[in-house]
C-alpha cells in the first residue's frame, strides 16, 4: 500500500474507533448534544479550536498567502483576537447562564433566557442555522475533494463522496461525545501539520533571510502587510481580514463548546490553551502559503488552494505526508461534524422536541438527530457539487451570516441587562438580510467584507429595539 495512503487510513481508523467507543456514552439528548456538560478544559479548548478552524484555515488561508504574501496576516490577527475575546467575554457567562436556564443549544438559550412563549426567537435562529450551516458544510466537502484529488489523484467528485461519507458516519454514530473527543485528537493533528510544514520549508530555503529574499524576488509587494496596495484597496483588505474575528462570538457550534464544559472554572485554563493553539495554527497557516511562494513561486498552481496538500506530499516522507494530509481532513471533519450536530440538534431539540412532541422519548430524539444529520449532509453535498467559489469565500459567507445574526444579540444578552427579546430578534433579521444582500450585490461585496456592515447594523438593531421595547416594558 502507498505509505501516504497508509498514514491517512490509520488516522481514519483511530477517529472511527474513538467515535465508536464514545457512542455508548450517549444515553440522553443532553449527552448527544452537549456531552452531558462533562468535558474538561483540554478537550473543550482543543475541540472548540478544531471545530472553529475548518478547511478554511488549512486550505484557504495558505492559498491566500500564496497569492498575496504577508498581506494574509490580517485574517490571522483578526481571528486570534476574536478567539481570545470570545473565550474571555462570552464563555463564562454563557456557560453559567445556559446551565441556569437548562439550555442545550443557542436557540434554546435565547428562548429560555427571554421566556419567549411566542417561539419566534427559536424558529428564526433555527432557520438561520440550517441555512448558513448547509453552505459551511458544503465548503468542507468541497475542500475534501481538492485535498484527496491532489494527494491520491482521485477525482474531486469521489474525494467529496469519501469525505462526506466519513463525516456523516461518525457524527451519526457518536454525537457530541464522539465529536468532542475526536476533535481533541484532530486538534492535535492540525496544529502539528500547521507548525511542521512552514518550519521545514523555511529550513529547506536556507533560513529566514533567504526565505525573505526569495519572496521579494517574486514581488517586493509580497513583503508588505499592505500587499503593495494603496488607499481604499489596502484598507478594504486590512479591515476585511481583521473583521473575520467579529464572527467568533456568533458561531453556534463554537458557543456550544462553552456550554459543554464541566465547571465554569475550567474555562480559565481553556482560554490559555485555546489562545496558544490559535496563534500556532494561524501563523503556521500563513507561513505555509509564504513558504510555498518562496519554494514554487507565483502562478504554479491552477488552484491556489492546492498548495498545502502539494507541499505536504513534496516536502515530507510519504508516511508523514499521510499524517499531514490527515491534518487537513481533520480540519474539515471536525468542523463539518460539529455543524451537522448543531443543525441536527436545532431540528430535533429546538423544533421537534420543543414544538411538536414534548413527550418524545430520548431514544426517539437521538434517532431523529441522526436522520436529520443525514438529510443536511445530502443537501450540503449537492451544494458542494455545484459550488463555483473558493473554499475561502464560501466559508466566509456562512461565517458572516452566523456572526452577524447571533454575535450582537449574544454579546448584549450577556453584558447588557436592558436587552430584550424583540431586540435580539431584530438583530437576527437585520444581520441576515444585510449579509445576504451585501454578498449578492457585487458592488457592495467588492467594496467591503459583508460581516462589517452586517455585524454593526445588527448590533445597532439589538441596541435600538431593546431601548424602545424595554422602556415600554
Amino acid at each position: 500500500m502507498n505509505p501516504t495512503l497508509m498514514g491517512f487510513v490509520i488516522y481514519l481508523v483511530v477517529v472511527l474507533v474513538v467515535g465508536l467507543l464514545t457512542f455508548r456514552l450517549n444515553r440522553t439528548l443532553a449527552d448527544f448534544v452537549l456531552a452531558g456538560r462533562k468535558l474538561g478544559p483540554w478537550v473543550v479548548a482543543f475541540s472548540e479550536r478544531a471545530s472553529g478552524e475548518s478547511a478554511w484555515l488549512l486550505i484557504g488561508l495558505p492559498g491566500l498567502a500564496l497569492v498575496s504574501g504577508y498581506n494574509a496576516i490580517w485574517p490571522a490577527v483578526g481571528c486570534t483576537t476574536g478567539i481570545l475575546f470570545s473565550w474571555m467575554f462570552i464563555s463564562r457567562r454563557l456557560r453559567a447562564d445556559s446551565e441556569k436556564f437548562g439550555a442545550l443549544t443557542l436557540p434554546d438559550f435565547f428562548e429560555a433566557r427571554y421566556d419567549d412563549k411566542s417561539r419566534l426567537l427559536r424558529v428564526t435562529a433555527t432557520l438561520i442555522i440550517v441555512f448558513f450551516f448547509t453552505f459551511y458544510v458544503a465548503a468542507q466537502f468541497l475542500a475534501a475533494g481538492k485535498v484527496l484529488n491532489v494527494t491520491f489523484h482521485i477525482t474531486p467528485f469521489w474525494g467529496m463522496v469519501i469525505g462526506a461519507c466519513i463525516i456523516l458516519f461518525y457524527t451519526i454514530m457518536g454525537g457530541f461525545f464522539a465529536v468532542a473527543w475526536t476533535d481533541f485528537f484532530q486538534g492535535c493533528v492540525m496544529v502539528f501539520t500547521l507548525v511542521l510544514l512552514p518550519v521545514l520549508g523555511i529550513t529547506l530555503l536556507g533560513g529566514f533571510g533567504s526565505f525573505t529574499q526569495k519572496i521579494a524576488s517574486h514581488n517586493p509587494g509580497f513583503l508588505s502587510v499592505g500587499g503593495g496596495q494603496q488607499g481604499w484597496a489596502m484598507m478594504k483588505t486590512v479591515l476585511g481580514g481583521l473583521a473575520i474575528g467579529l464572527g467568533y462570538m456568533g458561531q453556534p457550534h463554537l458557543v456550544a463548546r462553552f456550554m459543554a464544559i464541566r465547571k465554569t472554572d475550567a474555562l480559565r485554563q481553556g482560554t490559555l490553551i485555546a489562545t496558544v493553539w490559535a496563534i500556532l495554527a494561524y501563523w503556521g497557516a500563513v507561513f505555509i502559503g509564504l513558504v510555498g511562494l518562496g519554494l514554487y513561486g507565483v502562478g504554479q498552481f491552477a488552484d491556489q488552494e492546492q498548495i498545502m496538500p502539494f507541499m505536504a506530499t513534496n516536502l515530507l516522507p510519504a508516511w508523514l505526508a499521510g499524517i499531514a494530509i490527515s491534518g487537513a481532513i481533520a480540519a474539515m471533519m471536525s468542523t463539518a461534524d460539529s455543524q451537522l450536530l448543531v443543525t441536527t440538534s436545532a431540528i430535533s431539540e429546538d423544533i421537534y422536541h420543543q414544538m411538536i412532541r414534548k413527550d418524545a422519548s430520548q431514544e426517539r430524539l437521538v434517532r431523529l438527530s441522526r436522520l436529520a444529520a443525514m438529510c443536511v449532509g445530502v443537501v450540503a453535498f449537492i451544494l458542494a457539487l455545484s459550488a463555483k467559489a473558493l473554499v475561502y469565500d464560501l466559508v466566509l459567507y456562512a461565517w458572516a451570516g452566523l456572526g452577524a445574526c447571533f454575535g450582537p444579540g449574544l454579546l448584549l444578552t450577556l453584558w447588557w441587562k436592558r436587552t430584550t427579546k424583540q431586540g435580539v430578534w431584530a438583530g437576527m433579521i437585520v444581520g441576515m438580510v444585510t449579509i445576504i444582500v451585501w454578498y449578492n450585490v457585487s458592488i457592495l461585496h467588492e467594496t467591503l467584507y459583508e460581516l462589517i456592515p452586517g455585524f454593526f447594523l445588527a448590533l445597532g438593531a439589538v441596541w435600538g429595539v431593546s431601548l424602545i421595547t424595554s422602556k415600554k416594558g
Partner: protein
Amino acid sequence: MPFWTLFWVIVPPIFLIVSAVVFYVVTGKKEEM
C-alpha cells in the same frame, strides 16, 4: 523586511498570550476571594 511587517507578525501573538495569562491570573484571584 519592512518594519510594519515585522511588527504585525511578532507583536500580536505576544500581546494575545500576555492578555490570556493576565486573564487567567486575575480571574483566578477573583474566584479565590
